[in-house]
Structures are given as C-alpha cells and as structure tokens.
C-alpha cells in the first residue's frame, strides 16, 4: 500500500474550535467541577482542544433542564408540523456548514474529509429531514373491541431520553439518535464519546439557532464511567439509547435495571459475515468485500469482518483481494486521494495491532498488511488473514480495525451455519446471482440487516439494529420513531351504537 503522508498538494482547512463547553439548557457552560479533558488529532496524537468534562453533577443539571423542557416546555406541546419546521431549519443549517463539520469529524476521528463532506454531514441533514417529515405522521389507531367499547391508542413522547453515542461516526450516530427523538417530542441529554465531542457541540449551537427550545437538547461530553453511568442510572431519564460495545451495553442495561427500569435500546458490536458464492462476479465481490471491511478504517460496527468465500472462486478471490488491499492509500484523511485514515486513538491502534499479533500466533496466515504505516499518528496497513478457523479470536471478536479474515466454505448450508456461529447478529452481506440462494440465506442468517449484492446500504427509511448480542431496538426508519413513543390506550363504553 502507498503511504501518502509525505504527499503534498492538498489543503488542510483552517479550523477554529468554537465550542468546547457543555451545552445545558441552551447555554454553553463549564463543568461543575471545572475539569476538562483533551481531545486529540489521530493524525498526529496532538491535542486539538480541551473540552469541559461532564460528570454526574453536570448530568443532573442537564436532566433537570430536559425534565423541565419536557414537563412544562413548548416542545412536546407544539404540533408535530411545527417541530418538523424547526427540524427542517436545523437540516438547512447543517447543510450550510458541511465543510466545517466534516473537518471537525476528520481532525477528531481521523475520518476521510471527502466522505464527511459527501456522506456523513449531508446524511445527517437528510436524517433530520426524514424525521421532520415524520413528526406530523405519528398515528395512533382506533381499535376493534370485542365489546361495546370505543377505544384508541395515543402515541405520546416517552419523555427525557439519554443518548450515548460512539466515536466512529460522531455525526451519523448523533443524528440516528437525536432526529427521531426530537421528532417524537422528547427532550434529551446526549453524551458524545470522549474521543469525538467536537461536532456534537457544534450541532448544539445549530439546534439553538434553528429554534429548538432551551433544555430540549443538552450535550454533556465526558467519560463512560462517570457521565455515561450517571445517565444510565438516572432516575429522571425515561429512556436510554446507547451505541457502542457489547460490554458497555451490558453495563448500561444493568444500570437501567438497578435504577428506574428505564427502557433501553442498544446498538452494539458485530462480527458481520459477508458470504460470497461461486456464481458471483469475482471483481465485483472483491470490491464489495474490500469496502465492507476497510470503510472508515474498519471502525464500524457493521464491518464485514468475516469473509466466507465459496471454494470454486476462493483462490481467485484471495489473490485479487490482496492486490486491491495493496493498492489502498493510507494517509492524511484530508488528502482526497487517501482511502484510509488513522485509527481513532492510541488505545484502538494498539488493540488492532494486538489482534493482528494474536491472529498470527493462533495460526492464521497473514497475506498482506499487519503493520503500522507511519512514524506519527495511528495508521495501520489494510490487513488480510487467510486460513482463519472459526474458533480463532480474529473470527470471533470485534477488532474494529482494517483486518479482513478470509474463510472458505462449500455449501449454502455450511455458509449459513458458519455465518450464524457468533454471539453477534448485526449485519450480513450476501453476494450471489441466484434468487433462491439469496432468499434462503436472507431468512437464515440471524442478523438485523442483510445486504445482498451491496453493503452499507443504509437509508433513513430502513430500520437498522441487531439480533442476539448486537443489541435490540432499531435506529432509522419509522421503527426508530416508535422507540421514543409510549402507547397509551384510551377506552370508553358505547351506548346505542349502530355498529361495532
């Protein structure tokens, strides 16, 4: 692979960090403790900014503001169409700041600047618009009762929501959670990841400018064991929505159970299979798998991290995959020619290198990559292992890095059995031209989304979320709106009704 770090000829935009404090009740404020933490640029490991560090006391203030905004404020009391108008304005403001927001996510998370401008940031605006259009379409139902009763359901906003979002897609995850909750009429406290607080704080500013009332959207950057734990165990939060690792998801759910039994939705880890059948176009499949594994440097919960290739095309597939991986350009994510930026931080970087080492020691064959590729920052080569066995760590555990594990299979049944041989169930890819294979595999793989002859086919209208230990509850689509709504049934007797 070409290391592009020394290359010149691209411009790193001048970036001023405007928002570094907690956003509570419509104001940027310091932490109660006065503490701050550093957020670092993964290209260099250098500090970008110091950020107010929220913990329990700040979460309490944020919840109080959200509670007041929900219990007495205008947000849940205005018509859905009025909330929709404000969300449309929010979306327009996001669109007006694409460059700046994309740059923030790039310096904070090492994400490709070009992708941010083309996908992440406009994608956030489109999620806002989708739910802006849904805010006035929250329907209850009138019911068919078995006795002379008139009954209907009301869909009411669930209340104060806690959102804990991860660092790999700071913008996308923020809007996955915030957009439907806002549309439903909820108020909320958002904790962005400590690695990537910058864009969330910028969004707080835009939300206020769009007209979202104070207290509706509160942002408390901080760490999981302090701020995150305070949200998960808070008695005045009605619902928590978490995206992150399965291990932390378990802690969040425990905290909810131990406190007020708040409803929980979890979007957790994955070890998603991509199954390539003999009838696939090999070049197309190689490209698809490359994208599935290496997108966002493998830091994506739905990464195609177990690649099952049918024996008839296996050798050709492996050869071409290695060639393609070697062509991949790793380097500064601001460089438009770069395919892969640095891992988000030192911890992740070391964890990925450790898994590569474990893979080698457990007997898998390292075909390409496997090494850091820069003196400075957290860059890792696109890596491919073959001869991977089902029980190896690299086939079972989520690596969250640019590491492909290639495995061979013979029959459809075997592919299904292997694909399901995991505690995870987030996503799966299937590459085949055969309609029966497609139908059988789609129904047999226990995962929340199946992409057939495509991958990462996310869409605002398409629900997304896991089976098994990949979590429960859906983001996106109308399903996500339902997460933030209570159903209330209202019943009254009928007298002299002409029909039932």
């Amino acid at each position: 692979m070409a290391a592009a770090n020394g290359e010149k000829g691209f411009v790193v935009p001048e970036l001023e960090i405007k928002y570094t404090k907690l956003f509570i009740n419509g104001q940027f404020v310091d932490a109660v403790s006065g503490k701050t933490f550093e957020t670092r640029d993964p290209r260099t490991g250098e500090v970008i900014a110091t950020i107010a560090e929220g913990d329990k006391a700040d979460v309490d203030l944020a919840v109080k503001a959200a509670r007041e905004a929900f219990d007495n404020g205008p947000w849940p009391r205005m018509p859905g169409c009025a909330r929709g108008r404000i969300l449309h304005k929010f979306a327009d403001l996001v669109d007006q700041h694409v460059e700046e927001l994309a740059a923030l996510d790039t310096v904070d998370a090492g994400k490709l600047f070009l992708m941010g401008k083309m996908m992440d940031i406009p994608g956030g605006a489109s999620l806002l618009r989708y739910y802006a259009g849904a805010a006035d379409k929250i329907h209850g139902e009138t019911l068919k009762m078995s006795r002379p009763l008139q009954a209907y359901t009301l869909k009411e906003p669930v209340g104060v929501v806690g959102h804990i979002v991860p660092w790999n897609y700071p913008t996308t995850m923020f809007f996955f959670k915030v957009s439907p909750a806002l549309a439903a009429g909820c108020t909320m406290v958002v904790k962005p990841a400590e690695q990537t607080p910058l864009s969330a704080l910028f969004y707080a500013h835009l939300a206020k400018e769009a007209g979202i009332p104070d207290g509706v959207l509160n942002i408390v950057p901080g760490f999981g064991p302090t701020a995150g734990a305070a949200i998960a165990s808070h008695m005045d939060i009605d619902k928590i929505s978490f995206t992150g690792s399965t291990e932390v998801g378990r802690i969040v759910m425990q905290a909810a159970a131990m406190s007020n039994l708040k409803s929980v939705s979890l979007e957790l880890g994955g070890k998603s299979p991509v199954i390539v059948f003999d009838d696939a176009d090999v070049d197309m499949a190689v490209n698809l798998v490359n994208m599935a594994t290496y997108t966002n440097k493998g830091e994506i919960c739905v990464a195609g991290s177990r690649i099952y290739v049918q024996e008839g095309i296996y050798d050709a597939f492996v050869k071409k995959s290695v060639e393609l991986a070697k062509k991949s350009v790793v380097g500064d994510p601001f460089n438009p020619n770069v395919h892969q930026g640095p891992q988000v931080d030192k911890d992740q970087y070391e964890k990925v290198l450790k898994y590569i080492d474990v893979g080698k020691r457990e007997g898998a064959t390292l075909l390409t990559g496997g090494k850091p590729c820069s003196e400075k920052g957290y860059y890792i080569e696109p890596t491919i292992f073959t001869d991977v066995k089902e029980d190896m760590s690299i086939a079972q555990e989520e690596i969250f890095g640019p590491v492909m594990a290639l495995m061979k299979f013979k029959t459809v049944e075997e592919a299904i059995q292997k694909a399901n041989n995991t505690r995870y169930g987030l996503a799966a890819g299937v590459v085949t031209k055969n309609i029966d294979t497609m139908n059988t595999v789609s129904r047999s793989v226990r995962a929340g989304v199946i992409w057939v002859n495509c991958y990462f086919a996310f869409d605002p209208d398409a629900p997304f979320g896991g089976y098994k230990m990949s979590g429960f509850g859906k983001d996106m689509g109308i399903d996500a709106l339902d997460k933030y709504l209570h159903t209330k049934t209202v019943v009254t007797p009928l007298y002299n009704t002409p029909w039932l």
Partner: protein
Amino acid sequence: MAAMRATSSFLSRRGLLARLSADPLLRADNARHFLPGAFRRFSTAPAAAADEEPIKPPVEVKYTQLLINGNFVDAASGKTFPTADPRTGEVIARVAEGDAEDIDRAVAAARKAFDEGPWPRMTAYERCRVLLRFADLMEQHSDEIAALESWDGGKPLEQTAHGEVPMATRCMRYYAGWADKIHGLVVPADGPHHVQVLHEPIGVAGQIVPWNFPLLMFAWKVGPALACGNAVVLKTAEQTPLSALYVASLLHEAGLPEGVLNVVPGFGPTAGAALSSHMGVDKLAFTGSTGTGKVILELSARSNLKPVTLELGGKSPFIVMDDADVDQAVELAHRALFFNQGQCCCAGSRTFVHERVYDEFVEKSKARAERRVVGDPFKKGVEQGPQIDGQQFKKILGYVKSGVDGGATLVTGGDRVGSRGFYIQPTVFADVQDEMKIAQEEIFGPIQSILKFRDVGEVVRRANATHYGLAAGVFTSNLDTANTVARALRVGSVWINCYDVFDAAIPFGGYKMSGIGREKGAYSLRNYLQTKAVVTPLKDPAWL
C-alpha cells in the same frame, strides 16, 4: 409559528376568529362605534361597502396561458375566455381556453414525463426536496397568491392570506414528508413463498378542481399525486384559473421537471370531459357537484375504467344538543354555514337545534348573521365577499324565494347587498321542515336553515335522511351522546364541538352521494398508488 398555528386550526376558535377578535376594531361590541355601516341590518340599510369603488388588488396577472410540458402556451384553437371579478362582474383577464386537443397535448406531455422522465425515477428524497422548495416559494410569494385567490374568487383577503395559502403550503410540506415513507407490506404466505407488496405511482393523474377553494384543492390533489411520483394534468375551474397557473410556475421554479404538472384551464363539457374520458389518463380525481361527478364516473367507465375519486356535494347537519354551550354553538354554526360565502361542500347547511334551546339559538343566530360584515374582500375586517358569479347568485336568491314560498320563517337577510357584483345578505331561515327544498338541496350560499328536534334518535334519523354524507357537526358536552352520534351519522367527517378543522393529516371525503375516496392524510396516498404483489418461492426457508 403564527402562520403554522393558523394553518392547522384557522377555522376553529383559536384561529382566524381569535385573530380577528383580537383586533379591537373588529370586535363586535366595539365595531358599532368604528364601522357604523358595516354592522347594520342589511335588509333595512344595504351595506355601503359593496357599492364602494372596489379596492385595487395588490397583484398583477402574470400567467393566462395553458401550462403544458413546462411552457405557457396558447390553446390549440387560439380561443380564450374571460375570468371575472365577482365584486363587479368585470373581466380580470382573458385566459387560454383548453379543449380536447389541449388535453391531448397535456396528457402526451404527462405520459412522456411519467413513462420516460426523471420524476418517478429520482429518489423520493429528491422529490421531497422539490416539494419543500415549492412550499418555501409559496411562502415567499404568499401575498401575491392570496391576492389572486381573493380577486378571482371573491374571497376575503384575510381568509386567503391567513388561512388558505398557509394551509396549501402546509399540505405540500405534509406530502413532501410522505414521499420517502411509502411502505408496502411484506406479506405472510400460506406456504413457502416470499411476498412483497410494492406501491408504485399510478401514472398520469387527471385532476379537476372547483372554484370555491382553487388553491387549497390544488394542494390537496397535486400534493399526494406528486409525492407518489405521478404526472398530472390539472383542469382548473373556468371561474378561477389564476392561482393554479401562478403556483404551477413556482413549482417549476422549485425544480419540477417539465411535463410532470400540466395545467389546462377550461370548461367542464369540453376540457373536463376530454380529461375524464382520456385513454392515456390512469386516474381521475374530481371535486365539484354530485351531478358532474356522475358524468365523470360514467366517462371513466366508458373509456378506460380509470379509478375515480370524487369529492362532491353535501347537505351537512350541524346538530346542537340541549346541553351545548349555546353561544359557542351559535358562533360555530354561523361559521360552519357562512364561511366562504356559504360556498363550501361541507357547509353546515342544516342546523338542527334541540327544542329546549331552539328559541334562544334562533334569536342569537339572527343577531350574529346581522353582525356579519359583508363587503369588498380586500377590505380589512370583511367576513363575507360576493358569490362567485351571476349564475350562483341567481340560484341562491331562487332558493331564498323557495324557502319563503315553502313556509319557512325568514328571520333575517334574503336579499342582495348593494346594486353591483354578487353580494348576498347573510340569511337565516327558521322553522325549516325536512321536506323543503332548502333542507334537501345544496344551496352553496349564505343561507342558514334552522330545524327543531326533540331527541337523539330523531335527529340522527333526520340527519341521515339525505343522499349526501359529507360532514356533520355535533354540539354537546355529553360524552355518550358524542360517541353515539359520531358513529350513527353516515358521513365522512364528524366534528364534535368544532367545525371545519382541515388539518393536512385528517382524511376528508363523503359517504353516499357525497363521493368516493378520501383526500388528505395518509389516505390520499392510496389514490395515487398502484399495489403490486411480488411473489417468489422459498427454498429451505428458515421460518415462515
């Protein structure tokens, strides 16, 4: 925000009336001092307002041609027709008169736009963005649109500016939000089959809109049709072609591809008939009279069996129980009938009042009608403008005569206002009997008929004794009465302790001869979608 609130409830208490009555000049008790002429009883002192020099509308007429394939063009025949100002009967503009040949051109353009063009092929999100931009443009040009609508239709400017234009804009935004949420079901099969239901746009939709709410009916029809990805040929009423042409040009400015929306002003027997019987039109939606609705359904049957939605006439009951707040009921019953000069398909045109509150109700209704401000629709504070044209004007006065001749008590009004244009006094009849013509036929004018009843069973029976079934109002504070009556009335809308609430999301349409199908809400999407089941066998399915 203010506009938004007005949109959702401009006819209810918090809306238009609240705004008007918040203005001390317009509050009824103060008004006598400030506007002496306007509130006097018209039968004794015809309002001067109607005879004053008409206020010059603050708008110019820009578009008077047919809009076909993205261009404004003359009619093939070269013919034009006049559209008149109902305040004076004078010509506002001459408009290209579409005929069968123009409908052919418009359908050909729509067909091409649908069969080959980008509109049904672009993402729903892109369609959504076009409709949102259109709504923004409507808002930016709301003054001109409201003025055109008032000029062409004789509608009070305060009503068009604060009610109808925001409602039309709201309707477009509502359907913009549906574009990317049109879901089919994945259906459980009885055996090993995988079944998906696809909802596809139906194709070329023909739409015929009436003159009483030209812009709003445009939005109700064009909004869902475009959100679903269809192409449209719209025929406007010959009385009111102007606002549709204006906003259609804005829709193109917003990025609508050519041919997707074609607007053909013209007459029913020519352009309307050509559209209804066209073999290249896949769907027809019509709002207008029951008589014309029958013709349209027949033309569809005789041509290509295109599915038809009809929103037709009504003779909607407004039922006031003895436990109702009489003052509130009087006010709402008044507005239910007199709104838009009584030219509403869902006008509450049979006011049924319980005998225990009847006398009080009649007296207060009379007083309210006499306070109604009739005059130039461009004048601030005017509640009622002229009727749409001479034909309607004569028809309404004919009904007044029929009421008097039939033995109903003329409580107030009954005559024209002034000597020019088509203004009619707010008129109230009491002691109206069910079999009278004024209790049976749609008058479409400012004539309130009050009928007396004794109990719930009786009023339900009488309320249902009509060919129509569009809407009804029920005024009661009793929950059980409300539930019983709401279920018993054979009508498409029941407003309980309110009337004329027309949110974008609420379905609207008739039972019986008031029509077929529903407009607005999610229900209207069905009018513009085909349903396709796609079935394939499953081999070794993991579950069924």
